[in-house]
């Protein structure tokens, strides 16, 4: 089956270009930055030289849950930017180099071509994210006295994962639109900004996967808000973006 051949090619590419090792490392750094900054926040503020002399700031000691929230915050910004940089060239780069023509003139369906890109991006993101979550859970428990149980932390983190996967599908779609990686990155960035703005609408936050950050934190605190709608929408959006990418590639490459 050509999907398997294409997946194998994507896998080899991840290994040869060291993405398979660099992306998990990058994700771990992003997550740990949230944990460390939360822990260091009181010292950072205290050591600030900009404060007037004699200023006293009373701050509660940061808790493990604050660090968990900071990880989600890091993914909302640094994580999304990293995803853009990592995947903006996934189709655009091959179009610019002409490799897409070399491949699609062979007996390969556009479904398999785009599918291999989307699936491998999602697999890499999932594995990297889970690794980063596991490592940061370990450091949270090392650095914060109150600690956090693994089960709710993992559940909450998994609730947030679909948001990252939807965003990966958006970037692959943007990459299918153009042959310039930079343009693809620009469109993805604009989409990211747009989603942040749209997320301010209560209905969007409640029903679409872009508001899953809040639900993730709730699950970490062992609450169980209903996430059926955002999960369903995440699946639908991923399928729609995949179909859209296939349609664009079909249109542009024939």
């Amino acid at each position, binding site marked *: 089956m*050509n999907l398997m*051949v294409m997946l*194998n*090619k994507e896998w*080899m*590419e991840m290994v*040869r*270009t060291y993405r398979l090792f660099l992306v998990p490392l990058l994700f771990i750094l992003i997550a740990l930055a949230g944990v460390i900054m939360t822990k260091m926040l009181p010292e950072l503020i205290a050591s600030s030289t900009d404060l007037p002399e004699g200023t006293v700031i009373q701050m509660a000691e940061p808790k493990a849950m604050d660090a968990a929230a900071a990880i989600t915050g890091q993914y909302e910004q640094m994580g999304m930017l990293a995803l853009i940089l990592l995947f903006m060239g996934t189709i655009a780069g091959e179009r610019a*180099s*002409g*490799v*897409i*023509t*070399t*491949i699609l*003139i*062979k*007996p*390969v*369906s556009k479904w398999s071509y785009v599918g291999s890109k989307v699936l491998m991006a999602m697999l890499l993101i999932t594995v990297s994210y889970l690794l980063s979550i596991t490592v940061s859970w370990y450091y949270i428990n090392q650095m914060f006295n109150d600690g956090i149980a693994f089960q709710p932390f993992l559940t909450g983190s998994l609730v947030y994962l679909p948001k990252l996967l939807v965003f990966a599908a958006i970037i692959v779609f943007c990459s299918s639109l153009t042959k310039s990686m930079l343009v693809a990155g620009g469109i993805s960035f604009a989409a990211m900004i747009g989603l942040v703005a749209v997320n301010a609408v209560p209905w969007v936050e409640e029903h679409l996967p872009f508001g899953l950050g809040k639900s993730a934190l709730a699950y970490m605190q062992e609450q169980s808000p209903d996430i059926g709608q955002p999960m369903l929408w995440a699946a639908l959006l991923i399928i729609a973006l995949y179909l859209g990418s296939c349609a664009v590639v079909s249109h542009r*490459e*024939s």
Partner: protein
Amino acid sequence: MATIRVEHLVKSYPNHNALQGVSFTVPEHVRCVGFLGPNGSGKTTSINIMTGLLKPTSGTVEVAGINVLQDPDRLRESIGYVEQHPALIHWMTGMEFLVFVGRLFKLSKAECKARALDLLAKVGLADAGNRRVGGYSGGMKKRLGIAQALMGNPKVVFLDEPVAEMDPIGRVEVLQLIEELKKDVTIFMSTHILEDIERTADQIIILNKGQVQSISTLGELKQKYQTSHLLLEVVSKQDRLLYDLRSGVFGPLVIEEQGERLLIAPQDPERFAHLLQVYLQNNQYLLKHYEWTVPSLEEIFMKVVSAS
């Protein structure tokens, strides 16, 4: 049966018509087609349509008996294509790249490896098969591009400017390879380099301004556009010879004086040669230089293109 049949092919863009009713047939016995035309004549557009990369505005195309528009999936199993600058996967080795291409044609891993080894040897890359493609020279990439086009055992291979921008050694190697490939597969080759067409093509199609100007063999083309010239130099009495040539006795002809020599372009070269031989013998001329020249493909190409 025809290997390629193109009928009334039209490709229109909002501001111009790239192809204006292109029609031609490549018979089965033709092993190598030279597709000639100046820049912007529609060569690459035609090839893109024949390989299913581009949809025409109207017209029909059949390659290896497959309707390109109706059955593009089957077409992809029957053709190979090498772009002017083959786009290869740089992080793979030559061997890995060929195996990857073979797997896309649903060959087993063992078949892929055997065929890749065979093709690497055929294109002269046997020693470079385990090196990454990113480190290949331009000529090596071109040869690997040809090898990947052959992985699926195609019936027709399209080569877009196969020797453009190559050094003389690389050019000769690729042309020799094309000569070799002609035995197993039909080659459809577009190029600007007329010498290469002269060397490899059995059929020549000249395209200009999106229209076919000529379809023929090299021999037929030369015959059709043959205006043989005689370069003549006599030991003495040149003025008298010139006077007699201009008198009309030898039939219509054009004479150009090139120093001591006369360049004569007769309308009927055969009759003129006979009359001149008799004239020179009767008048006891001694010849210093006597040479018939046949127009080169380049001269013919210019003539065909300028006529359109």
